[in-house]
């Protein structure tokens, strides 16, 4: 790998951090606006559900998101502030359907300490000012003038240092805030202040309330006419206003999010830390509050934001599990829950750990992540390309073609599957037991190879063989008509649709037949100068049964021609160039645009836009899909048309935003494919590959495919063992009874089915911290090693832990040996046939020893001190790279002769590390606490010891996400002969669910991308006027690390 590294996003952030509802895009439309870490999504509420209008990145981590409506405006504006103290006000332009920046600015200060409890951004309900709490002890005010424009900001001193929440109160003549704070003695109080814009200072407010619930950390302002504020604690909920005080006790819970149901503010939804959703009702007589009521509604994902949309439909945004769209029913269901889940939105975050595996062993990397937290924990399998979920398969050698047929043209499902071999044709059908069974269609010839089959109008079937075309009734299955090829002219290629047949015989004869009720008429016959290699008359016009055009691929002159039917007049001839003949042509339409696809014998695919009236071909594009000839076939999935390209690297061609996209299918070598939509296997495909016939359904057509395996527990560490085809995870389960009690397990999972095979419970207070699959010198077994820590409530730092060594026997975890350690085992690595553990401050190397009685044990060999906490360790050869809690990266070396570990070099910056990885012998990659990525380089040719002992920072990049793990690997299929396959890549997973790839590029390629990025930066303006350059800079430095975010996802 080189110093030229380039970061690419493979999966955008998925965890929902904020959401709000309002009339943003137009005064009549209701919008849901969702913030996902660094992205904003704008949805429209439509009768069909949520419809995404816009999904834009913001150059900053979103700290606050608020909708507001200034005086005299018909629709809402969006206020966004980022964690780096930038803010902007966005407006939707209905005409151009884009965001306009109304105002923007910087609200950073030179004084003050950034708040610990997170930034607060609030807007006065009467739209007089914006309030921001960004630094301890300061409240920043941005006033509006009468026209709704922002004026210059000023700070007001806030005496309360530990502010937990601030909200504006409704119905006050002057803007008034309520401040929830904690004092020096850890007691919590609420105080109110009026903001005096004239004096730029606070005036003591109308009321205050001392000594609240110790867990109070959320304020909900209640709108007029009730006014006042709700204070949500862990054990009580209090309603407080100038003249009323009501309280109710609640079951102990930590409320994470709330959503207001009614405009008058009498009902609220509260989501707590365990995913329960409650309805809080303020009972009132006219404007007098008489009490509070709370009711449990049901369970959802653990909410980070709740937005009540309309008609009892609620958006529950989550950063620990999938976000949900729920409906609140009036009546409870059988389980007593009022919550009905309408839709789920996939969330990968937080990705705590992951591993890159190749389960199908075909060079296609898959990422298996430990996603989610607490009860929403899950494993997610993320892979590039489309998967086929196998439903049934039969062993069948030598398939030459496949077609599905219906028993009548109006029927919804396919009944027959015609499979053609070199010298016979077999017909399979579904029987009553939903099994595929061989059957017969009397009118079909079964002793010869079938060239083409199709359903035809008037409940007929058509079969084309090398010397005849047969028309068979699908009801009686008897031959109704046939057309014979002239003697000596065998049919080479043929195609048909419901009412037309086009075939080519030897010698370049092209014959066009039309199908009637029991008739088969030869309409036209032309002689071409060369042999025909492929043809297609797939209808793309208005009539689904009749095509106006025919596409023909030719031998010898290597061209593709378009003929008009029924006269077979040539209107277009396109030379393909090169020496490879077209092997398959296809006319198809995506999103209303007609295309001609033409696949060549060497795995290349040409596509043209086709003008259906003139037959003109435009926009020729060429892509490489594989290395073998491709066969093209259309199929539909989820009511959209796609094209399947069968070859050694099968792919699906689809269209998105009027752009053709190619997605790999996770299968090796497919020779033929046909859609087979039977009653038992709806929406399935029949696929011929490697001597078997498979029937399977296809995943959703998208670039990155995610499969979820919910485990209901919080998985912390994962590791794959190829030899035993298993995964092992460290996970924990919160006991529902007691609040802080957790149970920790090591679980073994099957690598295919992801079923729990075996479980090893850890001791009380024992946490699983690290897991590794490795083998040792002089022992050919493969083991799972698990590092643990005893986390006792009275200890700050664990003083005891264990290393457990397991072997997998018959799908069970067998404990071989254990070794006690003097601290938490934060990391385990295989190291020269030994085990390297990071235990608190120390790096410790263990040997695998055979005892006299034949059992094995771990024996400590040597160690290295001098870290604050050695959290992350990676090894390569004799080198050990340690990511310290707060001391950046250091490089250690193991000296074989002395049997000792010594420090070689370190980075003297004080980076708080989040992950490390070794890129190559000299360059190491790190991610820190401040959402940065950086690379350091070992200085081999320093003149002095001092220089050699210092690692130089060679690249820095602000990724804006908290990285939890780096792993070598790739999500793209590695083709052995392609250039792209040679670029080393590292995948990373983040808290927000973003998955990224870092590629080490040759310098020229990097320079090109950098240039492109700079140019794009000039053209593309960031949302809200935020600067891309400033966003990516770490402390005014940015070197040798670029990103693709401006480019969009490059398709190879």
């Amino acid at each position: 790998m080189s110093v030229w590294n380039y970061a690419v996003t493979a999966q955008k952030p998925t965890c929902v951090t904020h959401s709000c509802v309002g009339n943003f895009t137009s005064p009549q439309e209701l919008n849901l606006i969702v913030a996902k870490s660094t992205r904003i999504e704008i949805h429209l509420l439509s009768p069909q559900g949520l419809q995404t209008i816009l999904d834009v990145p913001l150059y900053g981590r979103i700290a606050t998101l608020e909708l507001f409506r200034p005086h005299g405006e018909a629709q809402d504006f969006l206020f966004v502030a980022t964690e780096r103290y930038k803010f902007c006000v966005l407006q939707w332009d209905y005409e151009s359907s884009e965001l306009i920046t109304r105002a923007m600015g910087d609200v950073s200060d030179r004084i003050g300490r950034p708040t610990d409890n997170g930034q607060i951004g609030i807007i006065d309900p009467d739209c007089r000012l914006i309030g921001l709490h960004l630094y301890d002890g300061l409240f920043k005010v941005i006033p509006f003038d009468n026209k709704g424009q922002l004026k210059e900001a000023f700070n007001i001193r806030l005496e309360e240092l530990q502010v937990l929440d601030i909200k504006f109160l409704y119905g006050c003549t002057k803007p008034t805030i309520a401040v929830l704070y904690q004092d020096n003695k850890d007691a919590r109080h609420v105080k109110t202040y009026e903001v005096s814009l004239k004096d730029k200072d606070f005036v003591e407010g109308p009321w205050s309330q001392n000594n609240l619930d110790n867990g109070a950390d959320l304020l909900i302002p209640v709108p007029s006419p009730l006014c006042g504020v709700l204070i949500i604690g862990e054990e009580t909920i209090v309603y407080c206003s100038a003249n009323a005080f009501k309280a109710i006790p609640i079951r102990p819970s930590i409320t994470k999010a709330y959503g207001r149901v009614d405009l008058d503010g009498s009902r609220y939804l509260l989501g707590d830390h365990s995913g329960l959703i409650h309805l809080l009702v303020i009972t009132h007589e006219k404007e007098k509050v008489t009490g509070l009521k709370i009711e449990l509604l049901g369970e959802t994902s653990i909410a980070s934001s709740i937005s009540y949309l309309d008609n009892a439909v609620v958006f529950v945004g989550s950063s620990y599990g999938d976000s949900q769209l729920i409906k609140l029913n009036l009546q409870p269901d059988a389980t007593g829950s009022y919550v009905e889940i309408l839709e789920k939105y996939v969330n990968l975050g937080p990705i705590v750990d992951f591993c890159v595996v190749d389960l199908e062993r075909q060079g296609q990397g898959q990422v298996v992540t430990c996603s989610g937290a607490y009860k929403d924990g899950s494993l997610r399998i993320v892979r590039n390309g489309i998967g086929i979920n196998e439903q049934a398969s039969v062993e069948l050698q030598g398939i030459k073609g496949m077609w599905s047929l219906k028993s009548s043209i109006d029927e919804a499902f396919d009944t027959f599957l015609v499979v053609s071999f070199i010298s016979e044709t077999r017909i399979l059908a579904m029987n009553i037991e939903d099994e595929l069974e061989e059957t017969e269609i009397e009118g079909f010839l079964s002793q010869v190879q079938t060239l083409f089959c199709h359903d035809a109008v008037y409940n007929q079937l058509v079969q084309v063989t090398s010397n005849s075309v047969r028309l068979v009734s699908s009801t009686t299955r008897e031959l109704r008509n046939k057309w014979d090829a002239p003697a000596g002219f065998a049919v080479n290629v043929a195609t048909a649709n419901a009412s037309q047949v086009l075939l080519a015989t030897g010698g370049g004869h092209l014959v066009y037949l039309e199908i009637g009720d029991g008739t088969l008429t030869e309409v036209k016959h032309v002689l071409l100068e060369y042999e025909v290699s492929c043809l297609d008359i797939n209808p793309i016009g208005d009539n689904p049964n009749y095509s106006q055009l025919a596409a023909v691929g030719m031998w010898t002159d290597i061209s593709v021609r378009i003929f008009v039917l029924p006269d077979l007049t040539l209107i277009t001839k396109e030379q393909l160039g090169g020496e490879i003949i077209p092997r398959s042509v296809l006319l198809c339409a995506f999103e209303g645009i007609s295309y001609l696809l033409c696949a060549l014998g060497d795995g290349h695919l040409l596509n043209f836009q086709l003008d259906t009236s003139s037959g003109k071909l435009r926009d020729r594009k060429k892509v490489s899909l594989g290395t073998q000839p491709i066969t093209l076939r259309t199929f539909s999935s989820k009511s959209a048309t796609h094209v399947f390209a069968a070859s050694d690297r099968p792919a699906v061609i689809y269209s998105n935003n009027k752009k053709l996209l190619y997605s790999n299918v996770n299968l090796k070598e497919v020779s033929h494919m046909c859609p087979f939509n039977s009653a038992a296997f709806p929406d399935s495909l029949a696929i011929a590959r490697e001597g078997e016939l498979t029937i399977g359904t296809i995943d959703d057509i998208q670039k990155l495919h995610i499969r979820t395996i919910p485990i209901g527990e919080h998985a912390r560490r994962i590791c794959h063992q190829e030899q035993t085809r298993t995964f092992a995870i460290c996970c924990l389960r919160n006991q529902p009874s007691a609040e802080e009690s957790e149970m920790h397990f090591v679980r073994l999972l099957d690598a295919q089915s992801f079923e729990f095979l075996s479980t090893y419970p850890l001791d009380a207070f024992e946490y699983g911290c690290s897991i590794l699959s490795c083998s040792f010198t002089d022992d050919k077994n493969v083991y799972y090693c698990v590092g643990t820590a005893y986390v006792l409530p009275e200890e700050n730092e664990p003083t005891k832990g264990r290393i457990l060594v397991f072997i997998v026997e018959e799908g069970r975890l067998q404990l071989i040996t254990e070794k006690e350690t003097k601290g938490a085992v934060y990391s385990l690595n295989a190291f020269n046939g030994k085990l390297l553990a990071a235990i608190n401050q120390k790096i410790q190397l263990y040997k695998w020893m055979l005892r006299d009685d034949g059992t094995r044990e771990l024996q400590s060999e040597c160690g290295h001190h001098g870290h604050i906490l050695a959290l992350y360790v990676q090894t390569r050869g004799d080198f050990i790279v340690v990511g310290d809690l707060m001391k950046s990266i250091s490089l250690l070396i193991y000296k074989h002769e002395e049997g000792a570990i010594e420090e070689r070099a370190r980075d003297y910056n004080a980076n708080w590390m989040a992950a490390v990885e070794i890129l190559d012998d000299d360059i190491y990659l790190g991610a820190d606490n401040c959402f940065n990525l950086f690379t350091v380089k070992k200085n081999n040719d320093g003149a002095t010891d001092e220089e050699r002992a210092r690692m130089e920072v060679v690249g820095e990049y602000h990724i804006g996400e908290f990285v939890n793990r780096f792993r070598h690997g790739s999500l793209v299929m590695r083709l052995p002969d392609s250039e792209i396959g040679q670029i080393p890549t590292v995948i990373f997973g983040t808290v927000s669910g973003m998955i990224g790839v870092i590629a080490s590029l040759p310098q020229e390629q990097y320079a090109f991308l950098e240039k492109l990025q700079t140019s794009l930066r000039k053209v593309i303006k960031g949302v809200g006027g935020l600067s891309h350059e400033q966003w990516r800079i770490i402390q005014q430095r940015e070197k040798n690390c670029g990103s693709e975010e401006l480019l969009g996802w490059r398709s190879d």
Partner: protein
Amino acid sequence: MWKAIKDRETGRIRSNSFANRFKSRRILSLQLSNRKDFVSPHRGSVNSLQVDLTEGRYLLSGAADGSAAVFDVQRATDYEASGLIAKHKCIFTVDKQHDNGHKFAISSAIWYPIDTGLFITGSYDHYLKVWDTNTAQAVVDFKMPGKVYRTAMSSMAMSHTLIAAGTEDVQVRLCDIASGAFSHTLSGHRDGVMSVEWSTSSEWVLYTGGCDGAIRFWDIRRAGCFRVLDQSQTQLGIRPPILKRTAVSSKFFSAAKSSLGGQNRLKTLQSKHAGSQSVKGSFSAKASTEKSRQKRIHPGMLSTLDRATAHYGVVTGLKATNNGMYLLSAGSDSRIRLWDIETGRNTLVNFETGRIQTNKAIQLDTSDDPALVFVPCMKTVKTFGMWSGRTTLMLRGHYESVNTCCFNSSDQELYTSGADRQILVWSPGGSVEDEMVQDEVAEDKDNWSD
């Protein structure tokens, strides 16, 4: 710890609060380090300590024997006790034997804030010298009118390279490294100036504490001092009182409003004044409002307020907090006071100090997380909660009175020095580390005895 790491991984706690939490735990466990030693080359009381501001790696010390030394705090020069005790010898010293060396005690040694290429020493021999670190030669010197007590450079200065020097003389002088001449002479103190400190929020604002017990604030772009701190001025009643208003009676409200009338008028005047100055940045605008008010109330600062004192006796130490909002002062009245910089008021936090050295400048330091103050109290170093004033730690280790505290926030280590000529390292302890180390030493010993 493991729980906190888990919460950080899942995004349940913010990464900066994770760091703050961990730092504060380490700071609260500070103890005399048994693994790190500075080998002091000084043969006199060590009067000044500072870690460089750019890398946080080099410690500069100045001592009463006229010597100054630089240590690497990260890399040890050699190890003792089988590699467990790191010895940090100084990288170089400049002392009386040096051609350019000071003749008398060095009272203050500070780094040039932009890089480690220069450092500045001030001495009782009336000289202030600027040294080139790489060649260890004095490059500029300034002759002061008396003994130099304290020097300071602004850590945030972008447009000036001024050294503020407090001396025996009543005037504070600003020495410009760029020109080699005095650029300002600030008059106001009635006695020598023991402590000088630049603002941490504005590069133009300087705080000085004199032997006359006064703390003066200077804006070096304007003539004269703009504020004198008064220990009797407190924050009580600074905000208008609670309005006795209910939703029902609007009469009450108007009454309350009219009672505030006088005050309001006064404030409108000020805000007009603020409006005329086109100062960018909200806080500075606010601060300048305050400044202008001060001037308005006390034209020329020659009235009674000018005689206001911050301490009874000598102001021996000043330290502005990193957030730029508070100033700590130490006095020979054995008091530590915490001042709100914006309003110039005494916050009345009662620090539980014992006795504090009276005849010598002392160096205080602070930490942000948790907000603590490190104060040399005779032979011990005490740490107080910034807001409570309560003693959180008593660090005993020096044999004679302590002069300086210097907190290294990137490593959470405290360096102290005193009249016993030692520089001591206080590092986070109480963790398993020490036990592990001890166990190992024991193990090692066993191995050797075999």
